[in-house]
């Protein structure tokens, strides 16, 4: 658990990082550096997006699987690292 905390601290202290959310396999946020409302909103939307990315890849090749997802927009970049039971979401300002 201390390792997780360390890693989160390290990511959080990177220049430009606006927020970090850890979501479990049911789409429920278990940890976040953002306010409740943003956390819930991002978690739900990104959970949907990750499911879609996974099924997109599996439709192309059932043996393949998602290892990372980056959604860049005008105002920020959302990076998602999926794992078996969780996914890690980091929102950053790419120009910072």
């Amino acid at each position, binding site marked *: 658990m201390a390792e997780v905390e360390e890693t989160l601290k390290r990511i959080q202290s990177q220049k430009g990082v606006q927020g970090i959310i850890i979501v479990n396999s049911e789409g429920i946020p278990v940890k976040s550096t953002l306010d409740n409302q943003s956390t819930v909103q991002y978690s739900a939307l990104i959970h949907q997006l990750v499911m879609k990315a996974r099924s*997109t890849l599996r439709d192309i090749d059932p043996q393949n699987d998602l290892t990372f997802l980056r959604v860049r927009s005008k105002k920020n970049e959302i990076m998602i690292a999926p794992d078996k039971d969780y996914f890690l979401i980091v929102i950053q300002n790419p120009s910072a």
Partner: protein
Amino acid sequence: MADVEETLKRIEGHKGVIGTIIVNSEGLPIRTTLDNSTTSLYARLLRSFTTLARSAVRDVDPQNDLTFVRIRSKKQEILVAPENNYLLVVIQNPSE
């Protein structure tokens, strides 16, 4: 048009690039370096995914918009650059 050709050639000549597809606003692939069935599959799936990614971005902030998507998997990386309802899709081998 020559500019477009140049750019595409540059991308296609990049080490690790497996294929490029341009999808028009109606979801039809208008240019591709892959075979027909692979192209149609990617065009359909990625158009659907990009639409979801874009609405996720807009749901968080209606002033914001999607500029780029990177879907990384074990076997390849799919890059999607949406513009004016068109999509530029590049599939590359992530390790090169």
